[in-house]
Structures are given as C-alpha cells and as structure tokens.
C-alpha cells in the first residue's frame, strides 16, 4: 500500500511538472498575448494542484495535508481570477484578440 501511494504521488508530481514545462513552452512560443495567457493559466490550474496533490499523498493524514488542501483551494480561486484580470486589462488596454502579432515589448527587451 505505501508503494502504491508513493507511485501515485510521484505520478501526480511528474504530471504536474510536465504541465509546468508545457505551460512554460507555451508562454515562450505562442504568438500573441491571449494565447500566452492561456498557456500560463495551464501552469496555474493544472501544474500547481497536481504537484500539491502529490505532496499531500506524501505527507499522509497530517496537519501539513490540511494546509496543502487550503493552498489548493486558494490557488483554485485566485489563479483563474488573475488570468481573467490580466486578459481583461489587456482588452481594456486596446489589445485585439483577433489579430496575431508579436508582442511589442518583445523586440526591445
């Protein structure tokens, strides 16, 4: 049984890590702002919860698990909101989701 839990927890951690890498690649490679937000929010909404779930399995039924559960809930509420706020701020700032073009800051920085 401990082996099974260990396997499951490492699988979750690895899947979470993979989502993080995918999100990172998307953030760098996707062509324009809104699809990049989409890539970044993958990291938020899949990577972190998966890793935290894996860690919860590692720590067993302790206070740490409860704290991690609170973290998941907090992330679950806040990260999509942050992505939403970012996208809205971009819309408000005059970015057009229809056009695909490189970001302005890209060339200079």
């Amino acid at each position, binding site marked *: 049984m401990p082996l099974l839990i260990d396997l499951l927890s490492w699988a979750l951690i690895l899947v979470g890590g993979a989502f993080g890498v995918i999100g990172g690649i998307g953030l760098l490679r996707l062509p324009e702002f809104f699809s990049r937000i989409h890539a970044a929010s993958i990291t938020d909404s899949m990577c972190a919860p998966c890793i935290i779930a894996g860690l919860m399995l590692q720590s067993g039924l302790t206070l740490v698990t409860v704290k991690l559960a609170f973290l998941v809930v*907090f992330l679950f*509420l*806040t990260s999509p*909101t942050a992505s*939403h*706020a970012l996208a*809205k*701020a971009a819309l*408000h*700032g*005059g*970015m057009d989701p229809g056009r695909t073009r490189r970001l*302005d*800051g890209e060339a*200079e*920085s």
Partner: protein
Amino acid sequence: MDTVVDILLLAFLAICAISILRLRDLFAMTMMFGLFSLISAGLFTTMDAPDVAFTEAAVGAGISTILILATLAQTSRREQATPARSKLVPLAVVWVTGAVLIYGTADLPAFGDPDAPVHNHVGPHYIQESGKEIGIPNVVASVLASYRGYDTLGEVVVVFAAVVGVMSLLGLRRRPPGLRPARGKPDPNDVLKVIATMVVPVILLFALYVQFHGEYSPGGGFQAGVIFAAAIILYALVFGLDKARQVIPPKVLNRLPAAGVLIYGGVGVVTLLLGGNFLEYYALAEDAKTAQHMGILFIEIGVGVTVASVMLLIYFIFSERGRGKRPDEGNGDGDGDGDGDGALSRDEGGTA
C-alpha cells in the same frame, strides 16, 4: 539538493537583476522587482527563515509593487533615454566598489560556519535558554520580542517615522477628490468582486492567525500587519478607494501608527511602574513564563497595529495623489488606474 535549489534561485535572482537593468519599460521593471522579491522569499525559505520570507513575499512582492504601480500611474510608463555621456567613469566606480566589496567578503566567515562570531556571542544562549526563560517554541519571536525588545521598539519607531515623513510630504486628505460613480453600463469587474469577497476575509483571518500564533509558528506583528494591510489593499484595488476608506476611515487610520508605538512603549512603562526594567516582562505577572507571554503578546499587537496602519496609510496617500491631479479621469474602470491604461493604449497606437 539544497545546493542545487540555492544555485538555481540565485541564478534566477541574477537574471532578474540584469533584466531589470536592461529594461526600459517601467511597468515591466516593476513586475521584475516583484519577481525578485518572490525569489528572495524562496531563498529565505530554503535558509529556514520563514519569518523573513513571509515579510519579503508580502512587502516586496505585494505591497511595494502596488506602491510603485501607484506612483507609475502618475508618471510615464517609459524610462526616458539618458543623454549620452562617457560611461567610463561610472564603470570605473562600479568596478572599484565591486572589487572592494568582494575583497571584503574574503574576511567574512563561511556560510554556516560554527566558529563565526555570530554563533559564539549571544546566539547560543538564545537558542539553548529560550525554552526555559521565555517558554515559547518560536525562538525568532522570543529573540525579537523579548531578548531584543529595545531593537524591535526601534524598528517600530523607524516604521512610524517613515509614515510621518510621507504624511508631512504628501498628506492624507480627509475627503479625497471623488470619482464620478454614475456609470451607464453595469460594473464590469464582477468576477474580481466575487472572488475578492471570498478571499479577503480569509486573508484577514490568516493575518490574525499569524499575529496571535506568532509565538508558536513563523510570524508575528510585522508579518501579520503586512498581510492585514495587503488584504485591505486588495479590497481597495477591486472595490475602489472610497469603499476601502469607509472600512477604515482616515480619521482612525491617521492615529493608529502612533497608537501601535504607544502600546509597545506603554508595555515598557508599565513594567517600569511595576518595578522592573524597561520592557522587562517579568514584572507583568507572578509566573515568569506567563509574564513573558503577556509581554510578547502586547508588544506584538503594538507592532502589528503600527505596521498595518503605516502600510495602508502610505498606500492611501500614494493612490490618492493620482486622483487629485486628474479629477476627471476614471472613465469606466474607476479604480484609479485610468491613467496607466491610457498610457498603455497610447503605446499600442504608436507601434501598431
């Protein structure tokens, strides 16, 4: 493993610092500063200093970012090109300073060296005797609040002095120039508002936990004050400054920094009156450990009140300034960031 994490984090720090130097977009720079603080917080955590990491994450990544943004809203978004001058002299100065600093580190004891003076002076006494003398598990809190009570009082006074400086330069108006609340279309920030109403109370509760559980777990007055202020600032960002000012009226807020320092100093005076030395908590109760607990609890409340109110005051003052200058900004978004967005769309128009 720790070494790998340390090296990675330090490398990120260096990359951050270099990119801050190279950026010309002040908004992006602000974000990088936030990232820098967050990585520093991570470094502190790997060094087993969660108390410091707390403060760094909340102040460095949270509140100071917002303060810089509030300042940015009143200036331009781009850094102006500096006139071309000879770069040799600055380069020489930087090189010499850097060389002197690196030369200086040669004499420092190695990181974690048990023979370092820090670990041979009063440190071992604090670590070994804190359980017996103070009786609280968090040694950081017992050092901060009891052994080095004078230093912490000094720190609180410094925070107080900072807000006195800001207020005497900028001042907080009783009634700020308001934004026009009447708008035709429904308020567009519904998602933010719903989430904020769910999250802000939890953050406030967490601040109270950090405040009153600081003797047992990482935390204390400084951290709690900052988290409390961050919650109210979040509320102000989402619901607007006027609503936040209704939560804590400036008339009250103005007096709180001094009240916190008074609570802290008052504990000292009470111990004097009860026959002890200044801030010697043993005079507060019969039992030595109870006395220490009481003293630490009271002065942490003082610290928390001062820090929270100072952070809030500085935020209110900064974000008010932007409104005073442009009373008819705020067309639609209404959170005082109208100017920043305007600058953004100007940039867009210029380059598209």
